[in-house]
């Protein structure tokens, strides 16, 4: 059972209010926004990075399709019938000069393997020229 004097004394003590604490926002209010600013900066950097990656990929697609087209062109060029002795003779007959005949020969990007014991038309022609 509370003693009346105690209650009165407690009321008296409660008239003393604890001194105010330092404001939390004075210390933390700057810290939290700083963290958020950092988070936003990080998010923005990630967004820029992601956008760059997407842009690079989008940019690469037309390039690769153009590459496919050029590859097709090369394939078309290389699909020219191979140089044979007959074709070389025709070129030499109809060409005004040996140089122009050589110039009309199709460019071969890949050196074809000549079977063992055989000679390429160019080799034969070059030997004839030497003779």
């Amino acid at each position, binding site marked *: 059972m509370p003693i009346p*004097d*105690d209650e*009165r*004394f*407690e009321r*008296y*003590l*409660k*008239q*003393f*209010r*604890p*001194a*105010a*604490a*330092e404001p*939390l*926002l004075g*210390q*933390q209010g700057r*810290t*939290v926004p700083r963290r958020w600013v950092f988070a936003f900066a990080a998010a923005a950097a990630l967004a820029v990075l992601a956008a760059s990656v997407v842009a690079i990929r989008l940019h690469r697609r037309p390039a690769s399709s153009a590459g496919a087209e050029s590859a097709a062109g090369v394939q078309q060029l290389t699909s020219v019938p191979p140089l044979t002795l007959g074709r070389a003779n025709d070129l030499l007959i109809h060409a005004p000069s040996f140089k122009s005949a050589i110039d009309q020969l199709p460019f071969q990007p890949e050196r074809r393997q000549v079977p063992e014991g055989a000679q390429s038309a160019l080799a034969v022609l070059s030997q004839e020229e030497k003779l």
Partner: protein
Amino acid sequence: MQPIRAGIAAIETLYRQHSPALVLYGLTLAGERSGAQDAVHQVFLKLIERGGLGPVDDVKAYLFASVRHAILNDAHRRERQVPLEPESAWFDPPDRDYAAEMNLRRALRSLSDDQRQVTVLHIWGELTFAQIADVLDLSPNTAASRYRYALAKLRDAMCAREEPCANS
């Protein structure tokens, strides 16, 4: 982001409500105001970092217990006892009666640590004896008994002087 903001706002509200009593309680443990203030800030900053209190049954008791742990951990870390700081004011006295405030401070310092903690928690922290028992890891009866002794001792110490104290 809204729940985080709401959590921070709730923590700030808790700080406004309880920080004066928490710092006062910290003062009785740490012995100096800056240490007490640091401990209270530490507790609330951790709450803000976690985005809220989480599942806590008794928020007030939790806050006082957290401040106590923070100060005791700090005292262990420093491995020294800091004497109670005599200069800084602990209270805003009624009618700017700073002599009475000094008298109350002196009387509180005359109590043992246990008695001072129970007194501060009950009168200015407005914790029940059950809550005090939780904070200090005591039985509620021990807390109540300790409080009665402390109150009598405090009254004797204060009223031994010329202040009106309980008779006002």
